[in-house]
């Protein structure tokens, strides 16, 4: 039986392309077939660019044959939430409003992944304007959970979680304001990280609430995610809030394991509305961390409810600035569900955010 490249992780497939035991064309062809296979059920893509991906894969194999310097993602197929600018390519933001918008410049995170050798196989489904945590989208169709399509994929980076879990991409890019990387990662059983504010550039990424927005990777293992973050992180003059601190090799850090690591476990607020099965899963995860040598420290996070409300005020006030004109002039371009959600933003003024 021939090997299924989709069964490999990102780090492993990158090594196999580098040592020549797999080709980028072979790997990309396999993933494109997988993407086409799962798309009718999961609807995780809004575009599959087979032609562009195979052209890039051929170029990657040619570069290796010529002995070119290879990046840490050389020839590895990825996919991105449909909210990152790529010069000359229309993008949608999960909406019908932006269907004809063609960016002039590529997002910094995409430039960094391309410089590392990554190949783009398509654009991923998302909540309309990232305003939703479930993965529903009335315009482009709902994205479904890769573990069980009867369940929601989580959002707003719904396709980013579902496609990676379905092995249709080795990793993906998402964005996270109030959980939009972490929720679909959890729902689909993959790894996602919203790094510290300022670690990853947002230049060329759709805005929801720039005071809180973050860009982050989703992948099938912590190590895969760490490699992605090491490539993505770092100062960018196009996004002045990005940190000038040196970026650690996050992947190398994961090799140290978690022996002796102190992990805070908040016991207030977060468990208040958790269902028994979620509580049980959480406890099982904590037990697994403890077995690996981590030290669990129970703690109480002060004022979580107030912080949550304050965060909502900031997000809604900033979203009002972004959506206000369209909501007033062209409300029909929004789906009814998202129009209601976005209109709520209009109830928050900058005064509310100040308070």
């Amino acid at each position, binding site marked *: 039986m021939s090997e299924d490249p989709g069964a490999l992780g990102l780090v492993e497939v990158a090594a196999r392309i580098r040592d020549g035991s797999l080709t980028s064309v072979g790997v990309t062809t396999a993933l494109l077939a997988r993407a086409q296979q799962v798309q009718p059920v999961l609807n995780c893509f809004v575009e599959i660019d087979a032609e562009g991906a195979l052209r890039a894969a051929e170029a990657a194999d040619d570069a290796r044959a010529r002995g070119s310097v290879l990046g840490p993602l050389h020839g590895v197929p990825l996919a991105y939430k449909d909210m990152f600018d790529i010069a000359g390519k229309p993008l949608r933001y999960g909406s019908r409003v*932006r269907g004809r918008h063609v960016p002039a410049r590529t997002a910094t995170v995409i430039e960094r992944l391309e410089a590392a050798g990554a190949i783009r196989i398509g654009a991923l489904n998302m909540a309309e304007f990232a305003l939703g945590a479930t993965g529903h989208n009335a315009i482009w169709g709902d994205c479904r959970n890769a573990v069980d399509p009867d369940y929601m994929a989580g959002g707003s980076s719904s396709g980013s979680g579902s496609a990676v879990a379905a092995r249709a991409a080795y990793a993906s890019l998402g964005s996270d304001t109030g959980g939009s990387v972490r929720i679909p990662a959890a729902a689909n059983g993959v790894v996602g990280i919203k790094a510290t504010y300022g670690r990853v550039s947002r230049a060329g990424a759709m805005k929801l609430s720039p005071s809180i927005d973050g860009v982050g990777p989703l992948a099938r293992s912590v190590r895969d995610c760490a490699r992605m973050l090491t490539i993505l992180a770092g100062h960018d003059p196009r996004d002045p809030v990005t940190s000038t601190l040196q970026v650690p090799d996050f992947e190398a850090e994961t090799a140290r394991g978690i022996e002796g690591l102190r992990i805070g476990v908040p016991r207030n607020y977060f468990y208040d509305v958790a269902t028994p099965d979620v509580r049980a899963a959480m406890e099982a995860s904590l037990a697994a961390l403890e077995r690996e040598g981590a030290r669990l420290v129970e703690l109480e996070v002060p004022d979580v409810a107030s912080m949550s409300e304050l965060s909502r005020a900031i997000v809604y006030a900033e979203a009002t600035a972004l959506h206000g004109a369209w909501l007033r002039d062209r409300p029909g371009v929004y789906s009814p569900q998202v129009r209601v959600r976005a209109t709520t933003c209009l109830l928050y003024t900058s005064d509310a955010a100040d308070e």
Partner: protein
Amino acid sequence: MPIEPLDRDTILDLARLAGLPLDDADQAARIAAGASAAIAAVARNIRETLFDLEPGDYLAALERLAPPPTTGSVE
């Protein structure tokens, strides 16, 4: 979608249709360039939103949108 700039011949055709006495090709070329620039500026104004701003320009744009403070200075 990019807007095609107007050319000299289009201006001359439009002038003829409107019954205007324009038969100077150089002048028509200058009008075409000016009209194209004006159309592009209007199109930019219609299409560009806060979404299209670079992160570094965004906060400054928000500051411009904000109403002036009504109370005294912050101490």
